[in-house]
């Protein structure tokens, strides 16, 4: 503290501390805390409880309608008993029968299903019989009413009880989603390992190149694809793998399949395609860190090992790889993190055709199902998985955070 204030004075120091504080608290910590908070607050979908409440309301409404009809029918019966003709001619429209006069004036063909048509001659069934059916229906509904009300109340109470801190966002996640989570991690890990295997010789070769012109050229060759937008790199591959894409056209030309007859290999519909494109999209995040560390290795060490009779394998195992450890750690962490959290590759290579990636499930919970808390729980799972991976890599390669982020 004294160091900063002495050089820059209280005002600038205060500003520096304030900005750092805002960054840490408002941009880094609080959003994550909020995410964690949401992840542990279960908000029931409300679907079931709402449905039950709706059913109850519907039954009550139906009973009200039946009551209305019964009254109308009873009135009709009473009128018929007291020498009906006068009532009809008197034209006193009963309150329960607002359509009666209209029905008389208008076309008599209007039949309203479900509505009693007391004013209309000839009724479908004698009023007594209609009364009876209506009454049985009402009795039936009233019998159900108790059950419906109980269910609606119970679900509502459950909904209220369940809201609050719990692990339910995690425990209610379906087995399928857990499996997708696991697969995503396995695939991401494989992407990381493959990227390393492919990249290591390249990084080594570039770092060992002696001529500066050649190094510049090789670096240019690596920087250009790295700097070109991730989406465009994916797009290039989608063009190749699409159903009428370049790969299938090539197979068509070779006579292996016939596009004209609708034969096509659905490359994009497989996890394999996602896997391949992901390697292409993130491989350069592995090359540069490894290159940067191997470059600092004194070439004499390799020469010395060779002169002392070490085999190529041994040189790599005992000299180059140990030196490159921080670079390998950084490359692995970046590649794993990018692939596990990638929404671009699985979302754009044959969207909806291949099994989901975990990021897509998170996306759906947020933006399609509107289920933010479950989405937060899943985002938290992803974050925890990545953190564990970072910790594992750090302890495996014995590197510190300082060596990782440089």
């Amino acid at each position, binding site marked *: 503290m004294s160091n900063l204030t002495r050089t820059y004075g209280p005002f600038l120091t205060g500003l520096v501390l304030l900005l750092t504080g805002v960054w840490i608290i408002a941009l*880094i910590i609080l959003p994550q805390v909020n995410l964690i908070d949401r992840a542990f607050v279960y908000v029931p979908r409300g679907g079931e409880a709402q449905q039950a409440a709706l059913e109850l309301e519907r039954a009550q409404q139906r009973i009200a309608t039946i009551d209305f009809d019964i009254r109308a029918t009873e009135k009709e019966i009473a009128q018929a008993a007291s020498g009906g003709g006068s009532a009809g001619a008197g034209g006193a429209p009963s309150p329960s029968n607002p359509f009666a006069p209209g029905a008389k004036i208008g076309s008599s063909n209007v039949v309203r299903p479900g509505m009693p048509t007391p004013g209309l001659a000839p009724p479908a069934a004698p009023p007594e019989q209609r009364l009876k059916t209506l009454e049985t229906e009402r009795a039936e509904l009233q019998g159900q009413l108790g059950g419906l009300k109980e269910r609606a109340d119970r679900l509502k109470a459950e909904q209220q009880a369940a809201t609050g801190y719990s692990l339910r966002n995690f425990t209610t996640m379906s087995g399928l989603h857990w499996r997708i989570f696991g697969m995503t991690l396995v695939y991401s890990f494989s992407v990381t390992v493959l990227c390393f295997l492919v990249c290591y010789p390249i990084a080594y070769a570039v770092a060992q190149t002696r001529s500066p012109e050649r190094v510049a050229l090789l670096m240019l060759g690596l920087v250009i694809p790295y700097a070109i937008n991730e989406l465009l790199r994916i*797009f290039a591959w989608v063009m*190749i793998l699409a159903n009428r894409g370049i790969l299938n056209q090539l197979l068509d030309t070779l006579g292996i399949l016939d596009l004209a007859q609708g034969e096509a290999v659905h490359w994009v519909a497989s996890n394999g395609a996602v896997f391949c494109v992901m390697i292409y999209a993130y491989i350069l995040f592995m090359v540069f860190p490894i290159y940067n560390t191997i470059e600092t290795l004194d070439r004499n060490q390799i020469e010395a090992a060779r002169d002392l009779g070490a085999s190529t394998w041994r040189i790599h195992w005992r000299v180059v790889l140990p030196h490159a450890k921080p670079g390998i750690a950084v490359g692995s962490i970046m590649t794993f993190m*990018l692939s596990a959290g990638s*929404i671009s590759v699985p979302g754009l290579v044959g969207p909806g055709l291949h099994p989901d990636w975990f990021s897509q499930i*998170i996306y759906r919970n947020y933006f399609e199902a509107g289920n933010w808390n479950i989405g937060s729980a899943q985002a938290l799972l992803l974050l925890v998985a990545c953190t564990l991976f970072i910790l594992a890599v750090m302890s495996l390669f014995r590197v510190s955070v300082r060596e990782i982020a440089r």
Partner: protein
Amino acid sequence: MTTATADRLRPARPRLTVDWSDVALNVYIGVFFLYLFLPLLIMVLAAFNANDTPSVTDWRGFTLDWFTGRTDAAGNLVVKGLPQEDRFIQGLGHSLAIAAGVIVISIPLGLSGALVLTRLETRATTLLYTLLVSPILTPGIVLGVSTMIFWRDYFALEAGLLTTMIAQGTFIASYCMLMFMARLQRQDRVLEEAALDLGASSFMVFRRITLPFLMPTIATSAVIAFLQSIENYNTTFFAIGGSWTLVTEIGSRMRFGLSPVINAIGVVFVVFTVTAAVIWTLARRRELARKAAA
């Protein structure tokens, strides 16, 4: 003199015979670069194909329509090219606005963080450092959603350009911080001390000594922040809400089917990138040569 010492004095291995491991390595490098560049080459070529599904195998003649659009004699638009794609143009505007905001956010934050970490000797430094680089190690989508819901929950700020700016700024500031730290660690503190001894105010020291020393890094950080922001997809996709940037628009267009207009955008990107990369390489070589001469 024994034969052993004579052997050692000789060059390690006279390279008269073909070194097969070298050949294998070179072939491998060739294949790797083919793997890197072939898809991009295909993408570039397809931008000039008159076929309205992007392809190089089904060649229907050379055209620039996807770049310019084409109108028939009556002035009706026949082929929609880049200039007619309003959402792409607007998206580019949004991208540039976000990038400008990200530069404004991340350079002061990154510089402050770097000053705190390099100048403030506390026991919490490692913890602070871990916290400040953690956004780089967090998956982009987690950063995107956490920012989006936080600002919505507490400030009723709807997801849009502003939340995207904040989400991107959070991790891009970490990159800037690392660059500033590297520079600050090479700073000769004696200059600042001397200025203070000679009676300069602390503000003066910062403005006349520290800032000029950091100027090159501020420039590089701005460029890196700009590029990172423009390129970003994963974080942006989750924080942008109903709005869009050039890159998210490319993404949503890709989901509806491929269009050669995206290839045209790709060509523009490739041309920019290659030019920038070549200039950067030449500049670096000149700098290295100057250093070697000095």
